[in-house]
């Protein structure tokens, strides 16, 4: 079936290090992906998106990589800060609805 999954449920990094959060998807027809950040008790917050005609997109301190061959998506956060601590979800837009992965909880150690 259609699904979006994440490789690791938790990730712990040292403040200042780079973080990489991975995501796999199964639907070959998927063409739009979004990373969301969810802090405790809050709604998902848009971070960055990428369409299937691209393999890389950069934002402020964040980069998303898309490998359509292996159906893999990653989010890279440069110089991770304590404020980056949250659960990160990749989501795949299918026919107007978002299909979310399970989420990776990022913890940043001072």
């Amino acid at each position, binding site marked *: 079936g259609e699904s979006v999954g994440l490789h690791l449920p938790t990730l712990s990094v040292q403040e200042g290090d780079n973080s990489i959060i991975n995501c796999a998807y199964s639907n070959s027809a998927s063409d739009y992906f979004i990373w969301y950040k969810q802090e405790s008790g809050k*709604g998902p917050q848009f971070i960055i998106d990428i369409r299937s005609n691209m393999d890389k997109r950069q934002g402020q301190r964040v980069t998303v990589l898309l490998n359509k061959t292996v159906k893999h998506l990653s989010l890279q956060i440069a110089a991770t800060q304590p404020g980056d601590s949250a659960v990160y979800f990749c989501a795949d837009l299918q026919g107007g*609805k978002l299909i*979310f992965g399970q989420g990776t909880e990022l913890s940043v150690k001072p």
Partner: protein
Amino acid sequence: EPEVTQTPSHQVTQMGQEVILRCVPISNHLYFYWYRQILGQKVEFLVSFYNNEISEKSEIFDDQFSVERPDGSNFTLKIRSTKLEDSAMYFCASSDGVRQQETQYFGPGTRLLVL
């Protein structure tokens, strides 16, 4: 910066009671959505709404659920007879554009607890 707002932030209700969750989407957005997140689980799609009608709904969105846009700004989710398993965070989202391939922006959520 425009944002999606939701009320109430928390709602406690007895099983079998009706609840209405309210959302004010971003003002120039055309597509509206409800999602839910059971504690510790991933966010799940419930329903999408465009041009005053449901565009798509999931298996979760059964006859106990309904959505309405009663005026030009509010978007509501009604659960007619709540069940224990309806306890979850409910998120409203909205997106812009004539195509559905637009980023969805989420509200802060309503935490529903059914006792």
